[in-house]
């Protein structure tokens, strides 16, 4: 049996290793579209702040790890999938034949269609290559404009500051990380950042980027004066990486459509990670979460189903994030924004930048968002995923939301 995995991000790596565990005799080929060893995008911020070197971003640190596991790495982009012949066409023109295929090609960064976005000094921050380019130019004293204060924008913000740049953040929405924080938390995060010397312009938009005299770039804004910059980083969004599948008969929507086994409409083709429009645990919708925990969960489950003929149902992944912004740690889980007919328990301590918001539906916890609460935080996943009936603890948590861990322990 020949398993081919396209994409050697976290999802593809976890999948290939799990396939090996389940089938000692299989032939396993892991295709990566870049020259570096398999690496984690998540580690890029730490590379930027020079906490680690490039090696530190690698998903497996032992250089012969894949070799030892009998996983063949192929260093080429896949340009076409011919599902009728179970064949992949690689960018060098060669072909590979699979019995079962996993597509885990992740997402790619997008840029808004504005004038000047393709200038020399404008980068995404999505690949190691991007990170190297940014590291070269983001030097002490340089001026940097960061477009987008979403999750990715915020997660690189601290690393950029640690490089000693003068940073201005431009965000179209009315607050930071609107997809993981409500107004209270987003507002607190903004004032925290400002107290650390970062200029944050919310409800603002970059309308074009032009060349300038003193600095390489002039960043023109909708509502305020232009900014001059040595470097612009565009973190405005990503989309699933499915371009090479358009000529195939694999069904696509926002990403690759999959069923509860992470199987596509083609029987021997599966998809996982950022590229797969998988099931969301909370609202049972088919959506792209684009997060590490979901990518690895998909990878593991897809592997089981590929080897053991759909024996493992995916009941959905919980959307969850944790973000450290210059020491202020925020989290969000599940339906943190609340559900219809639900109840909430909120603790807000503006002075100390602490916030905890629990959302309930009946006796169940369905989501939380927090600032400044980190101890035992994983238990939120346990409470939500385990659909723990809180009983008397519902009332106790309504009175004191910090008692999450006790609520959990009392119920096991």
């Amino acid at each position, binding site marked *: 049996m020949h398993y081919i995995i396209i994409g050697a991000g976290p999802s593809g790596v976890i999948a290939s290793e799990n396939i090996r565990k389940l089938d000692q005799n299989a032939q396993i080929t892991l295709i990566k579209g870049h020259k570096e060893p398999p690496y984690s995008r998540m580690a890029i911020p730490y590379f930027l702040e020079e906490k680690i070197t490039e090696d530190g971003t690698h998903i497996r640190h032992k250089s012969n790890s894949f070799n030892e596991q009998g996983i063949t790495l192929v260093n080429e982009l896949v340009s076409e999938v011919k599902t009728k012949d179970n064949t992949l066409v690689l960018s060098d023109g060669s072909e590979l034949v699979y019995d079962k295929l996993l597509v885990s090609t992740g997402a790619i960064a997008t840029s808004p269609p504005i004038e000047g976005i393709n200038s020399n000094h404008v980068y995404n921050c999505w690949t190691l290559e991007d990170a190297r380019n940014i590291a070269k130019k983001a030097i002490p004293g340089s001026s940097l404009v960061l477009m987008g204060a979403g999750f990715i924008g915020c997660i690189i913000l601290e690393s950029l500051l640690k490089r000693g740049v003068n940073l201005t953040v431009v965000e179209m929405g009315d607050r930071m990380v609107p997809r993981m924080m409500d107004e209270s938390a987003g507002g607190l995060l903004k004032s925290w950042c400002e107290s650390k010397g970062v200029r944050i312009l919310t409800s603002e938009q970059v309308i074009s980027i032009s060349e300038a005299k003193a600095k390489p770039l002039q960043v023109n804004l909708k509502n305020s004066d232009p900014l001059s910059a040595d470097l612009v980083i565009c973190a405005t969004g990503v989309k699933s990486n499915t371009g090479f599948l358009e000529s195939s008969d694999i069904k696509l929507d926002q990403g690759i459509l999959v069923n509860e086994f992470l199987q596509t409409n083609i029987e021997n083709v599966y998809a996982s990670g950022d590229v797969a429009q998988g099931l969301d645990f909370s609202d049972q919708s088919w959506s792209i979460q684009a997060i590490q925990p979901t990518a690895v969960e998909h990878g593991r489950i897809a592997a089981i189903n590929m080897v053991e003929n759909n024996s493992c149902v995916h009941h959905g992944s919980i959307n969850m994030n944790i973000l450290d912004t210059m020491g202020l740690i925020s989290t969000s889980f599940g339906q943190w924004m609340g559900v219809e007919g639900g109840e909430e328990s909120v603790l807000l301590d503006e002075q100390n930048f602490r916030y905890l918001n629990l959302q309930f539906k009946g006796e169940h916890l369905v989501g939380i968002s927090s600032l400044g609460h980190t101890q035992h935080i994983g238990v939120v996943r346990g409470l939500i995923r385990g659909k723990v009936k809180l009983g008397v603890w519902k009332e106790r948590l309504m009175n004191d939301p910090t008692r999450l861990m006790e609520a959990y*322990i009392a119920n096991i």
Partner: protein
Amino acid sequence: MEKSLVINPDKCTGCLQCEMACSYENEGVFNPAKSRIKVFTFHQEGRFVPYTCTQCSEAWCQQACPVDAISLNLVTGAKEVNESSCVGCKVCTISCPFGTINYNQSSGKVIKCDLCGGDPKCASACPTQAITYVDADQTGLDKMRQWATQTDNATSNTASNA
């Protein structure tokens, strides 16, 4: 035979010797706040429950780690954090459904129970045998492990509340 920690909350008196021993062994200070085992107090019921990592076989923390910083100690079965690889991204702390891997702001890394390399100091410090280190097949931790599988997508999602 692999051994594991067995916790019997009924025998716990809440003396916190385990937390002291743990923080001293791992951090060099007697500071329960830095302990990897934590005793939870239920005032209403007058109960104390020591709680730490079960070294669950799903190893959510290890799977979620983007940089290979959590590995299995083949001798003890513990999932151990490799300080030099950990970048402090904290993704493991939200992935572990037991909440037993935590971020340590002072080191910028995560910490969890590593069974002290096979000689867990919490167990030797416990005066009432609420925490013992015994052969794995007789552990009361099975209950918590079952819990782990409920969180696992591989199984039914109807969780009981026993």
